[in-house]
């Protein structure tokens, strides 16, 4: 049976469908992940700022948002995005890719908020005290002393978030957005070779995330050496 699966992959799946997996599927998966992490980072940075602000209601709102996102399943959030976004913004009703992206971005933003906040808090308090004792303002201390050190914690964590998001976007296939997992559903529907398609998709996911994780670790080591 195992031999047969391998044979099917190379005879019936890859010759006919490889471009669907590698170009469309992986392309959409990477696009979706990139949009998610880029927009998630921008939004997450703003939320992290609010979370560290001196105004309590801002902090509470961000905390509530982060907790709700982290305390509910991503698939549920995707469903909500899928149904809610078109109702709120009718112009988007025909574009499920955008609706699903918005849900993914909001989800990622919550995690990025924590990444940035903890990256900043990991910088020794003595750094802030030394800077403030020299007369630097809070903002100057943040931009000249704390953030340059915090990025060394934050960038690798964002890289890992990207790797995690690549895997999480597979849930978006529930709405046939065209990602790798969607291609699995499509090709399986055409060939009825479920296991074969799963293996192909699995290998692609693995290779991409493995290579990216290694790249992130190498990058992290280089940052640490720079001290």
């Amino acid at each position, binding site marked *: 049976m195992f031999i047969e699966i391998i044979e099917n992959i190379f005879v019936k799946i890859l010759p006919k469908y490889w471009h669907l997996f590698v170009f469309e599927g992986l392309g959409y998966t990477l696009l979706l992940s990139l949009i998610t992490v880029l927009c998630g980072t921008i939004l997450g940075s703003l939320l992290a700022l609010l979370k560290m602000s001196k105004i309590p209601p801002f902090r509470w709102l961000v905390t509530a948002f982060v907790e709700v996102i982290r305390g509910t399943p991503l698939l549920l959030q995707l469903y909500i995005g899928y149904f809610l976004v078109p109702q709120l913004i009718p112009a988007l009703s025909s574009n499920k890719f955008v609706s699903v992206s918005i849900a993914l971005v909001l989800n990622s933003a919550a995690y990025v908020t924590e990444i940035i906040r903890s990256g900043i808090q990991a910088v*020794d308090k*003595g*750094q802030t*005290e*030394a*800077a*403030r*004792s*020299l*007369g*630097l*303002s809070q903002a*100057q201390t943040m931009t*000249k*002393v704390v953030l*340059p*050190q915090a990025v060394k914690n934050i960038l690798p964590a964002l890289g890992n978030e990207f790797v995690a998001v690549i895997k999480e976007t597979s849930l978006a296939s529930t709405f046939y957005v065209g990602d790798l997992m969607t291609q699995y559903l499509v090709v399986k529907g055409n060939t009825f070779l479920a296991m074969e398609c799963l293996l192909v998709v699995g290998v692609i996911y693995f290779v991409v995330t493995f290579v990216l994780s290694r790249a992130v670790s190498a990058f992290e080591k280089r940052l640490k050496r720079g*001290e």
Partner: protein
Amino acid sequence: MENNYIIQTVDIHKSFEKLHVLKGVSQHVSKGEVVSIIGPSGSGKSTFLRCLNMLETPEKGQIFFEGVDISDKKVNIDIHRQKMGMVFQQFNMFPHLTVRQNLTLAPTTLGKMSVDEANALAEDLLARIGLRDKADVKPGTLSGGQKQRVAIVRALAMQPDVMLFDEPTSALDPEMVGEVLDVIKGLVKTGMTSVIVTHEMGFAKEVSDRVLFMDDGYVVEEGTPEQIFGNPQNPRTKDFLSKVL
């Protein structure tokens, strides 16, 4: 305030949650004076010192610096901190900057000097501590003693009127204590007003004009080094000194 005190505290109290750490400290430092603070661990020495530049906010009392009540929330503390250098037990070098940039960051960011002026001053200051050749390395490569010497001149680069030292040699290997104390002694000789929290009794005796003994949130006894070390009056001072000397 009608007096010559560069720093004056009036009945300052500070608590951390339920822990009452400063229980009413009224003290003063005159221009050019060197004041050492000694006392047992946890007695509030660091907390008092950190109140002087408002790194800790006392909940009661006032702190005057050059005549201005800096404990007043309406005062822009950053401006006054520029004139009070502080040296920490843990050095707190900025690890992402070179030694030179550690020195020039504050003067240039705060518009006190041009980049050229700040660099020239940094050269001078580093030469003074014999570390001119380290100007372009990151602090991570320096020894503890070197870091602390750089930390001292980093504070001096702002040309402060007062220097505050919080146990500047406590985190050092014994063989490096001397080089740091020598830098502080040299500085004090130039007339720099200084407040020094220290466990180095010999050093306190040598450099101080006045010694404060703190215990349990109070300045229990104060006097010249000769009085405090030679003829302490308070039993708690006697007890403390008998343990550390």
